């Protein structure tokens, strides 16, 4: 077991654990945001740079600090390592820089974007974005395309995390899309404009941290925070059949995979479950999913505010509770 200290909290982890995984074991505020890393996708991570942290002490053996900030998602823990995330001003500054970079070409179309309310970039911007933009340059623009009958691609919103590319590569039999071009002109595209056609392609929507890939069967049907996400399951011959059913009254508006606290799917689900089973009789509804209290989705009061939420009368703020 290796000992690592993150923001003054000591934890023991197994060899091979990354800093991000160790931080997730601690949980709470010390967890760096991750836009491109995805535990179940091999080779993901390292790209978005929003999880940068400072290694103030390399290891017990070699206590020198690492001169540059490191991507916590792809840096393995060493025994005796000391990591700074929220307590390092340098890290916070760098993260603000990264968020600014992610936003300079991202359209501010949250009001009409289906992802609003469950968008990782939106959360990141609330945390680290600036109030005013410093850029006067026009944003890059791409046409909106249908990649097959089920998925819509808004390349304008893409932050190039590569998750969908990896998902397509690792979940589907025939890899049909990837990254084209270079630099700030790179874009996700299907090869030679073919449609994406695979039993598991819908998971690309779930792994997309922003609104670049959206579910064509759900587009503009409802804001996510008007819906109640319920755990539901069915017998399925392709996947586990365990899903989240997003309901309004007795109607199912959409089906997604079940996401954990870090926004990652617990299991990938098949397209039949996702796109074809929209009737309540298709599913056994288990009950409401646990949603973070901070999420706008829980603002719909479908889950009672827990006892123990302290309201500070003076600041008028609510202590966040998990």
């Amino acid at each position, binding site marked *: 077991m290796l000992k690592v200290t993150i923001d003054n909290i000591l934890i023991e982890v197994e060899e091979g654990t990354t800093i991000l995984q160790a931080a997730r074991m601690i949980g709470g505020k010390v967890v760096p945001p991750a836009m491109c890393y995805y535990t179940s996708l091999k080779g993901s991570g*390292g790209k978005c740079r929003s999880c940068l942290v400072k290694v103030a002490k390399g290891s017990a053996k070699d206590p020198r600090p690492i001169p540059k900030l490191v991507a916590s998602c792809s840096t393995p823990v060493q025994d005796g390592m000391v990591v700074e995330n929220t307590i390092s001003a340098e890290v916070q500054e760098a993260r603000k820089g990264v968020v600014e970079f992610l936003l300079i*070409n991202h359209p501010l179309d949250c009001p009409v974007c289906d992802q609003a309310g469950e968008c990782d970039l939106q959360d990141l911007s609330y945390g680290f974005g600036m109030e005013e933009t*410093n850029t006067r340059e026009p944003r890059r623009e791409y046409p909106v395309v249908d990649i097959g009958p089920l998925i819509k691609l808004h390349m304008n919103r893409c932050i190039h995390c590569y998750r969908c590319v990896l998902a397509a590569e690792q979940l589907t039999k025939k890899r049909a899309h990837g990254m084209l071009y270079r630099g700030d002109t790179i874009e996700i595209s299907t090869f030679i404009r073919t449609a994406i056609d695979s039993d598991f392609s819908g998971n690309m929507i779930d792994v997309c941290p922003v609104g670049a890939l959206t579910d064509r069967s759900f587009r503009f049907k409802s804001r996510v925070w008007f819906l109640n996400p319920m755990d539901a399951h069915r017998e399925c011959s392709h996947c586990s059949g365990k899903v989240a059913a997003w309901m309004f009254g007795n109607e199912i508006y959409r089906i997604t995979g079940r996401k954990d606290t870090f926004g990652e799917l617990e299991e990938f689900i098949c397209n039949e479950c996702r796109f074809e089973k929209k009737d309540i009789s298709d599913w056994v509804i288990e009950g409401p999913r646990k949603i973070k209290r901070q999420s706008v989705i829980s603002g719909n009061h479908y889950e009672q505010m827990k006892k123990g939420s302290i309201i500070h009368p003076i600041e008028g703020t609510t202590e966040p509770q998990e």
Partner: protein
Amino acid sequence: MGRAILLDKVNIPGIRAFEVYREHGGYKPAGKALLGMTPAQVQQEVIKSGLRGRGGAGFPTGLKWSFLDRKSDKPRYLVCNADESEPGTFKDRYLMEKLPHLLIEGLILSSYALGVKTCYIYIRGEFKYLVGILETAIHEAKKNNYLGEKILGTDFSLEIYVHPGAGAYICGEETALLESLEGKRGNPRIKPPFPAYKGLYDCPTVVNNVETLATVTSIISMGGDAYSKLGIGKSTGTKLMSACGNINKPGVYEIEMGLPVEDFIYSEEYCGGIKNDRMLKAVIPGGSSVPILPADLILNTAKGQPRLLTYESLAEGEFISGSMLGSGGFIVFDENACIVRNTWNLTRFYRHESCGQCSPCREGTGWMEKILYRIEHGQGRMSDIDLLVRIAKNIEGNTICPLGDAAAWPVASAIRHFRKEFEEHIK
């Protein structure tokens, strides 16, 4: 000064041919090493020589070789980085064109030292004409039993393959190069793991620059100790400098490390002074990625010492008043050169060449280019200057590979030393 070690044979007519090269002492070092030295001894000579990587970073070559995972039972690879695409750098091309056998011999010696049986030369796509030259040299060496099975009757066998890239600067970054060599998109890998453990096809791999590997031939020929006596301090030996810009004699020169920059620019032996007797304005001493220095700081350090062509002297003053030797691409600007235009031009290059994988470089290079375009075209705002400094700072050190730094430094240094010029463009 002016001692030629790499280029001593360059003017011999027909030196590209195996026979001529051998008549003039070529392949003697290879014979000496394969028949009379152990691989460890060859590596020891390279360590003793103090040779540092000529591809830009100046990392000690012997030390890099000692990192190679020798416990693994996978095959090991040596990859020669001939992707030379940095603006201002054109020394490897010259070396390969003029003295292909010097490189092949260096590859044989290095492979022998490293226990490598397969070696790749990854060559920039635009250097198509060199592929034929190198392949002819490989063919000749093979015919004469310096390559192939059981070289010179020993147990050592080696194959060398030339692999042309598709013309991307980023494929010069060693891990992007390996991806490209594997047939994938040339995106740099996230390190660790380093190539010494997981390189080409996940096997232990050493990547070295053309000049570095060619120099191994000279080191075995003259001995590591003798080589280390050339140069100054930790900058041993000689270095190829590719000089260009507003000088009388642009070209590739071999210098002994420690030559004063002033001599290099003004002596007849090298650059021959500034064209049309104009004044020197600035120099980018090590290829487009290193900080630019104004005339007074390139000739003398901030402490008033003469600036020398060594890794240490050029770096003195760090980023406040220094630069780097880098790959030796020496770009000279005279008094009429426009620093803003030049900086814009460089950002245009980095914007185009960024692989687009990580956010700071992908977005930052494009943003800087757009702002510099505006300034150069009369639409700048005073606040843009500080914004550029901030963008450069947010890129630097926060990216996957050093291309981000390479894009940030030219902008940051140009503003640091020539801020007035930017302001005048905006006013």
